[in-house]
């Protein structure tokens, strides 16, 4: 019974998806707007149900609803709601509104499953549901050649990654005899022989599948093309919710199933993180397309999140999960805002190049302000959310002894600012060639306002989000007996950092 209640949000979300498809078929008046609103409302309903629901193991232990899943579900559902409202301005998808929102809802369901998954089976199902849904959504812009290309690329890369992941799941099964995390822990034991080479094989393949999902280097190359080609709202969803979903899956897999083998997977995560931060930021410099730039920036952001994930290797680390949760939140607000600005500008000017933003401050002060908030938040400038979030991520990384990653991350953030500021230059500093006011559909405006407010709110008063993250961390904590509580001085020794002399009188 508890399980059924816990499953209620998932079921309702399926219902919402089916409902909008059905309503579309029934020719509801003011379709697009209406369906978007219904989807958003549905998302909120699901959110409420989710939070009302019990903490329980689902599917007899294959998945679970707990603080962790609820925190991430909130990210997904908020993203869904904002994207649903923000999509309303989009002509390109207007024709297939029902299908659009329906598949979006199904993808969200997949993400929720991924966050709840406590077995590779559930994780795989969730991730695939999302990927397959998104493969369709990316191709939804029927008038856009790029949309078709993006879809085919996502399909090719996604299919290979998915096959790899499935193979990897098989290997993990081969090692442990199961893919349920808590039983994997038991099967592996804590010793060195408990982690045979075969596990490397499985681990690498699973991480490849999830790395594709979070667009971490070297699994990232699809992202810029897909983000650029996809309908902008869909890009927003992929870049935030889908990335967060992958991150949630990865985090739970690594921390719960392989929590004792942190030193084993740490090098992989470190390499991914380093590569993502460096390549993502460097490649973003050279971009002229705004969405593409956001894509590369998103790759880099994934790298930042991986810093915290890398920090989670150490049994004593306390912040990693919480930091990732919080960052997923703020990144959703911020990046959806960014894409929606691109969306609004593209609707009006027909171009999503950075140059199309030129003189935005004259054409639409609100959009200009939004883009500033978004860019500065991404760049980690206070008092916006990105600042606190990144600090938290780095703190988590440091907590796990990842001094190198933190240093590189801090340094490369400066490079990142270069391209963020270049956009700010176009949008806010330069004067437009054509100063006519830029029309902004009201729903998009509302969505943007939510994004901006969210970004600022998290930045100014991060406490609720931090505690949300801490709840999520607590949900994963029982599987980590060695995890120390806040305030213990023990931590991995750094050069010269570890020793603490007695207090001065």
């Amino acid at each position: 019974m508890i399980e059924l209640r816990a499953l209620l949000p998932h079921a309702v979300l399926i219902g919402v998806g089916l409902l909008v498809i059905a309503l579309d078929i029934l020719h509801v008046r003011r379709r697009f707007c209406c369906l978007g609103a219904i989807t958003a409302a549905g998302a909120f309903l699901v959110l409420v149900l989710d939070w009302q629901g019990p903490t329980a193991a689902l599917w007899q232990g294959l998945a679970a609803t707990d603080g962790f899943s609820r925190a991430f579900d909130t990210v997904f559902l908020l993203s869904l709601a904002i994207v649903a409202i923000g999509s309303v301005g989009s002509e390109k998808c207007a024709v297939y509104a029902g299908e659009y929102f329906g598949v979006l809802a199904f993808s969200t369901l997949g993400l929720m499953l991924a966050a709840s998954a406590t077995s590779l089976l559930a994780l795989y199902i969730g991730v695939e549901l999302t990927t397959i849904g998104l493969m369709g959504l990316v191709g939804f812009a029927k008038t856009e050649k790029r949309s078709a290309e993006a879809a085919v690329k996502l399909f090719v890369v996604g299919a290979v990654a998915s096959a790899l992941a499935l193979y990897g799941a098989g290997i993990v099964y081969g090692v442990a005899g199961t893919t349920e995390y808590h039983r994997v822990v038991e099967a592996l034991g804590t010793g060195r022989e408990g982690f045979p080479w075969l596990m490397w094989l499985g681990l690498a393949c699973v991480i490849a599948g999830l790395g594709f999902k979070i667009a971490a280097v070297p699994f990232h190359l699809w992202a810029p093309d897909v983000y650029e080609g996809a309908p902008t709202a869909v890009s927003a969803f992929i870049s935030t919710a889908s990335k967060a979903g992958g991150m949630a899956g990865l985090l739970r897999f690594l921390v719960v199933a392989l929590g004792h083998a942190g030193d084993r997977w740490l090098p992989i995560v470190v390499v991914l993180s380093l590569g993502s931060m460096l390549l993502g930021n460097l490649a973003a410099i050279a971009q002229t397309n705004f969405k593409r730039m956001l894509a590369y920036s998103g790759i880099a952001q994934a790298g930042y999140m991986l810093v915290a994930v890398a920090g989670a290797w150490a049994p004593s680390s306390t912040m990693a999960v919480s930091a990732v949760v919080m960052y997923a939140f703020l990144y959703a607000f911020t990046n959806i805002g960014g894409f929606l600005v691109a969306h609004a500008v593209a609707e009006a000017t027909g171009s999503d190049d950075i140059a199309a933003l030129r003189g935005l401050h004259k054409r639409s002060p609100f959009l200009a302000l939004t883009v500033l908030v978004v860019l500065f938040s991404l760049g980690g400038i206070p008092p916006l959310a990105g600042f606190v979030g990144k600090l938290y991520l780095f703190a988590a990384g440091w907590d796990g002894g990842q001094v190198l990653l933190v240093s590189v991350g801090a340094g490369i953030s400066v490079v990142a600012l270069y391209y963020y500021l270049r956009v700010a230059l176009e949008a806010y500093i330069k004067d437009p060639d054509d100063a006519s006011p830029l029309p902004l559909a009201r729903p998009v405006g509302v969505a943007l306002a939510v994004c901006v407010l969210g970004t600022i709110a998290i930045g100014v008063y991060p406490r609720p989000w931090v505690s949300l993250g801490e709840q999520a961390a607590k949900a994963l904590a029982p599987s980590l007996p060695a995890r120390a509580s806040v305030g213990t001085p023990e931590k991995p020794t750094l050069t010269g950092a570890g020793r603490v002399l007695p207090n001065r009188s």
Partner: protein
Amino acid sequence: MSVLAPTADPVLWLIVLVPLFMAVVAGILALTRRLEGAAPYLTSIGTGIAGLVALTHRPSRTHGYLGHVDVSWLQVWDRFHIALSVHLDHLAWVMVGVVCAVSLLVQVYSIGYMRGERGYARYFAYLSLFTASMLGLVVADNLFQLYVCWELVGICSYLLIGFWWHKPSAASAAKKAFVVTRFGDVGFMLGLLFLSVAAGSFGFTDVQHAFARIGSGAQQASTLMSNEVFLWVVPLLLFCGAVGKSAQFPLHVWLPDAMEGPTPVSALIHAATMVAAGVYMVARLIWLFTWSSVSAPLRGPLAIPLDVILVVGAVTALIAATIALVQNDIKKVLAYSTISQLGFMMMALGAGNTAGQATSMFHLVTHAFFKALLFLAAGSVIHALHHAPDPNDLRYMGGLRHRMPWTALTCGIGVVALAGLPPFSGFWSKDAIAGLLMERAGWFGHRMSPEGVLQLGADPDVASFGAVVALVVTVLTAFYAFRLWFLAFAGTPRSQAATQAHESPAVMTLPLVLLAVPSVFAGWWLHHNSLLEAYLTNEHGAPMHLTVAVVATVLALAGAAMAVRLYLKPSSGEDPVCGMPRPLYALFSNLWYVEAFWSAAVAPTLLKLGSTVAWADRNIVDGTVRATGRGIVRVGYEVRRMASGQAQSYATVIVAATVAVIVLLVLYEAAASGGMP
């Protein structure tokens, strides 16, 4: 070294504050249009009050006056504490008198001279500010205050030289004066730091004690240097300041240019008082220089700071005098003569000890009067000739004694005093200096006075050099002084303007007359019973050496006679001084190439250094920054090419990366666990 038992009297603050206040008031008046005329009266009264206060507080040798002590000006923790106070001892008292007197007369004179000038009140504000600073310097009780006022005097001089700022030459001269003296000030400041850190205090007495302790080896001077080096370096550093301020070789180049300022300014600050600051400072710290020679590790030429002072003074005196020979600008002649006389004072100080102090102060006082007189007279002439193509040029003058009898007369007195002919004031003081040097040189038989080691002064050989220079310069001085007078006042007018010149108004001639009086009598009066010397030093001054007096007088007369012979008759042709040997003339008229050295070597080098550093900053330091930026962007463009657009290449990367991760990890594990399982 006298021990003073000071009497505290806050009234002494008035010496500094009243002129300062008047400067502020005049400055405010300068902002108005109507009340400008009141400024000179206010500032004159201010200076007068300062003088009166000083007069009523005449300290004796054993009894100084101290201003209010407890003015804590700056305090850092408990250790570093600067309190302001004024201290009127006998040395300061003399100096205050000179400053006030000259300043007052110059201000009165300026009422007439500057009438109708733009910035009339501003001018008097500057003058008064200058007076205040100079008085502050004189009555300073510690090194810090001395330095503060020292700099303020400098900036006042900047403001006054650049008073006619719209003239590019004046603007440049002002800048030059300040910058060149600033070079010396760096030395002064360093010396100050050395000394105050070693002493843990700025106060003269503390510093003095510390210096004695260091000299006797009771205290380690500094980690930077040994006590010996300390004792040698610190006085020299301090002396650097004096070199700048008192226009000694090689920093004398600013003073002739400073004549770009209004003539009364030249009279006041570039002849009578400000340039005397350096001399005054060395005199004030004479025990320090003396001590350094006592403790000097070795004796010999230039081994001790006093030698250096003496040589610098001598060189300065000689160079400046020779240059003065060939100048045609009336103020330039006087300027170089000032430098030369300052050299004399330095020579006297170089002789060391209280005797040197007293002698140089003696010359300082007499010189202040007659040089102020000369400058004011020159100003009077210039004022009268303001229609001439160049009112300063002696070659446009001639025969002015008929048109301007008062000026001619007073100027004549000044000239004679400058030349050092008895019984005018210059004679007495110069004679004292020459005598002192000869005594130190041992020309009178006894090399060392009975007081013993403290009497040690400059090296006898160096002193001999100084004595010789003094005698030579006496000749030269007499010559150029008389040359000046004859060119200006004798003969017939050589320009239209000169024929139409008029005597200046009474407000200008009155100060001339007033200054002429001490120019005539001050020397005799002060020398009588060694008034000043006895007042300043513990000992009774050395009696006048008749031989010296005779020799000096003869030499001066010789110089004067030559000038009379050459210039008495009006000549329309070339200036007779051009007839001297060519190389010498070139050397003199080119100012011994010192000026050229500064303007052609030092200044451009500095500026070049500036532009080089600026270039390097632009292109190397900033260039590196920009190159880094560009490099990163370029890397970005390279990285970008990874995404070729071909979908399968993306997938290939994924597969390859996964395989690579597995292979690498397995290899690593294998290596770590020592082989394949």
